[in-house]
């Protein structure tokens, strides 16, 4: 698209209707129909990212009650697993594993509840039609959700790690801070890429979304090694590591945060970081195409935006 207005196809051979917003124009999507310049589209998409992130950031700061639940509940669950380890006389580093896993649940919960299932709920609230008819890309909406969600989840995870570490006396021995930060960021990017992909799939699967979210909790906590190193899954762990960014990311984070526990890890940290980098690209590309497909389907059938489907 050039910087000028997009050519407008005339209807039934009639004269072009000019650029009146009220004229009917044959166009594949609202972005083309808007006739906006590239700069204006970029600005609109940027505003969409910020606009969608805004309520999540502000909501997290404005509603103090969330602290009690968002922090308290993972702490309760993590405490339960720590106490099981204590009841089984487990070595102390396992307590640390459980605490780190408990903190990462904040991000996973955010991805499945506030990314994957979000478009489905947006439909129930009547927002989805607005997204589909606005001259923006749906990826910018999802990116806004991810940024806003990341903010709230990061606070939650930090508080869980700090509190649980204090209460249970967890000691960390980080072998490489740079590596830890890199792996952590790659894990988050892959996780939210997966969330974007799931968002479009959940929309297609309709009412099954609720069940799918349920399925993506405890079974994924088990397969993703939230409270135990995934090595416990044996050779099946390699398959999980190839699909689930949480599993491979958490394994690498644990190896880096607790030096000397590399023998418990599934793969060397470098390999796991490379897997995560590939996942980031694959999930985002897949999400892009899946969202484009969903958008096309929504316009052609007009069914995806109907409530209660």
């Amino acid at each position, binding site marked *: 698209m050039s910087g000028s207005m997009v050519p407008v196809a005339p209807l039934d051979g009639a004269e072009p209707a000019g650029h009146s917003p009220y004229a009917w124009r044959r166009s594949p999507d609202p972005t083309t129909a808007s006739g906006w310049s590239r700069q204006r589209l970029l600005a609109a998409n940027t505003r969409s990212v910020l606009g969608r992130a805004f309520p999540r950031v502000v909501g997290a700061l404005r509603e103090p*009650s*969330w602290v009690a639940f968002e922090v308290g509940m993972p702490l309760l669950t993590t405490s339960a697993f720590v106490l099981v380890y*204590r009841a089984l006389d487990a070595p102390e580093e396992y307590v640390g594993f459980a605490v780190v896993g408990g903190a990462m649940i904040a991000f996973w919960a955010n991805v499945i509840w506030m990314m994957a299932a979000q478009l489905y709920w947006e439909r129930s609230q009547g927002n989805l039609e607005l997204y589909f008819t606005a001259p923006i890309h749906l990826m910018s909406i999802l990116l806004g959700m991810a940024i806003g969600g990341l903010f709230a989840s990061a606070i939650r995870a930090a508080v869980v790690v700090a509190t649980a570490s204090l209460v249970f006396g967890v000691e960390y021995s980080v072998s490489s801070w740079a590596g830890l930060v890199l792996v952590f960021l790659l894990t988050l990017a892959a996780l939210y890429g997966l969330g974007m992909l799931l968002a479009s799939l959940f929309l297609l699967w309709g*009412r099954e979304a609720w*069940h799918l979210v349920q399925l993506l909790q405890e079974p994924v906590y088990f397969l993703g090694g939230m*409270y135990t190193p995934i090595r416990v899954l044996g050779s099946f762990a390699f398959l999980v590591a190839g699909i689930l960014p949480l599993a491979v990311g958490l394994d690498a984070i644990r190896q880096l945060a607790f030096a000397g526990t590399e023998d418990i890890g599934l793969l060397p940290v470098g390999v796991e970081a490379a897997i995560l980098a590939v996942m980031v690209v694959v999930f985002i590309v897949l999400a892009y195409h899946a969202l484009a497909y969903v958008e096309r389907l929504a316009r052609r059938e007009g069914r995806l935006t109907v409530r209660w489907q």
Partner: protein
Amino acid sequence: MNAAVAPGPTSPAGGAAAGFAPDGPFDPRRAETRPFADTLRSLRAGARLGWAIESNWSDPLLFAIYSIIKPLGAVMLLVALVWVLGAGGRSDAIAYLVVGSSAWTFVGAALIGLVQTILDDREHYRVLKYVVTSPAPFLAYLVGRAGAQLLVATIGCLVVLAIGVVLLGVPISLTAINWPLLAVSMAIGLVGLIALGIGLAGFCLQLRQEAWSYPEAVAGALYLLCGAIFPIDVLPAALQPVCLALAPTWWLEGIRRALLGEPTPGVMAPLSDTTVVAALAVTTAGLVVAGLACFRVMLRRARDRGLIDQLTGS
């Protein structure tokens, strides 16, 4: 009740036809004149509706998979803790975790399910106002909805136990199960859980934000305090009296004794089965009284303040 209301076909003066009268005037006294039949009908309707919503009108096979995988994932999550420590030979620990975790599906169904029922009806389907203002007994309707959730939980629980026995070697034998103890513990325990869920549902009607999270918080706290996945002896001594005052602690102990044939080591070990059942009955009675009282007070408050049809957008 207004005495001037014309007698309807289901009132004593209006005949004995059951159900809604298509040609007669509305009679708000119907629920009072046939309390048992109306209660039963509300219970049945609630259960049928609950089942339809729970199964989400999905393919039965698909729904069965959903119902099984979640509790199975929960129990495997715990069993992995034993495996990773190379303590696979500790069948006592695995049995403890499997039984506790499988039974916990009922807690999720009764607490989280009931609160979601009432909030979904208000916020999502927006029918709570119609249900509450209809002459049908609301409490019976809610218990019916809980029944459907408990049915789903039963399936998950049984499958997890079966897998525990077949694949993980949990020592449960059908011939060795103490069936009377199991039946009594389960019956009393479920009454207590439903009562707790109903009280919580009434409370959550009052809330503006985070109402959905309260049952999970309560269930999470109970998970920690009731010996669901570790003996209560592991907890600090100051918390143990609190654990013993909670009905689910005794409910789980009763189930474990019935299924595994032996008491939990620690503070529970010296107690007899009769003591466990008596403690369960007493704590459940307290829970029922508190739960129902809370529900009635909260429902009255919700009516007074117009919270029945409030949309919080949460």
